[in-house]
């Protein structure tokens, strides 16, 4: 792989490579445009159970059950989904389960829909209040390193970790149809 193709590596591929490195076996998600490529990669992987959820809070239970059974899990959600999880996060804290969440941010940059702003603007603070370590990523080239560090924190320390993928990183939503 030459330098050009390396920088062209899509950031979802970098996250997926980290999932493989740390042995993620279950991935829970509510379908999301920002996560669409990562979801595709997980669905195609025969070693990963992809679990499509009706609401993000279901994912917290999934992560706990996976950990009880000896498997590592990750959750993919939009910032709005974090709000759906708040009470269920108590499961992580009460029992000391590891949890890795990749959050695609909405409502913070070039947002078309003002209804995304109230939750998007309190997502990181809410996660911190719930006991999560949070790491923000702004640049595609930083995704690999930050997600790698986040995985290690979550699974070496049985800690709840959220990586926030900024709206600038994901790109403007195109509304021309």
């Amino acid at each position, binding site marked *: 792989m030459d330098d050009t193709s390396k920088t062209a590596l899509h950031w979802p591929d970098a996250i997926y490579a980290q999932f493989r490195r740390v042995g993620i076996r279950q991935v829970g998600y509510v379908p999301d445009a920002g996560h669409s490529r990562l979801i595709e990669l997980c669905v195609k992987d025969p070693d990963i159970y992809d679990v499509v959820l*009706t609401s993000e*809070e279901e994912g917290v239970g*999934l992560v706990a059950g996976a950990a009880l059974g*000896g498997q590592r899990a990750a959750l993919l959600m939009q910032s709005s989904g974090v709000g759906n999880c708040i009470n269920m996060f108590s499961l992580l804290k009460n029992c000391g*389960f590891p949890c890795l969440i990749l959050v695609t941010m909405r409502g913070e940059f070039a947002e078309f829909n003002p209804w995304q702003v109230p939750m998007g603007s309190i997502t990181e603070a809410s996660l911190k209040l719930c006991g999560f370590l949070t790491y923000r990523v702004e640049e595609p080239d930083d995704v690999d390193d930050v997600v790698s560090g986040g995985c290690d924190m979550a699974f070496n320390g049985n800690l709840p970790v959220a990586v926030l993928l900024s709206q600038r990183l994901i790109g403007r939503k195109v509304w021309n149809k």
Partner: protein
Amino acid sequence: MLDRREFVQELLVDRKGLLVVSGLGSPTYDVAACGDHPLNFYLWGAMGGAAMIGLGLALAQPARRVLVLTGDGEALMGLGSLATIGVKQPGNLVVVVLDNQHYGETGMQPSHTRAGVDLVAVAKACKFTDGLHVSEMGAVGRVRDLVHEGGGPILVQARISSDDTPRVLPTRDGHVIKARFMETLNACETIQTSS
């Protein structure tokens, strides 16, 4: 109508390697009343999450049977998870809802099942492979067979009396409940691998 303690006691007789997740409130006390067991994951909160914990566990432990034993109020709060489980079709997962048609912990206010909401019908509409209503002790053997051998996901709605039962409280320390569950499961796997 069933006596909840008698029903759960019979259901968990000779439980073999069964993994049990109990929903908060009375189902947790019912499971504890059968005698403490390290492969019980007692919930004291996370209302609406019991079935999903069961799903994560069932996927991670395909060679084991997983029983989620919960109440009607807890199951109603996690109704969406029945659709999620239906999509995933875990063959080793059975959900038994102890249905007293009331919220027992908060003063016996009527629940949706009291008004006729049918959880078996919901589960079947969510692609569960089987579902049944039981209301007599004569059916407990069949339910136990489903728990140990049925091709899941299966949901059983067990109509129990709403009579008050004495509380039997297991430890509330989630770290302890988790750690001993995982240690025991891990030890079983190590023994199986080395034999």
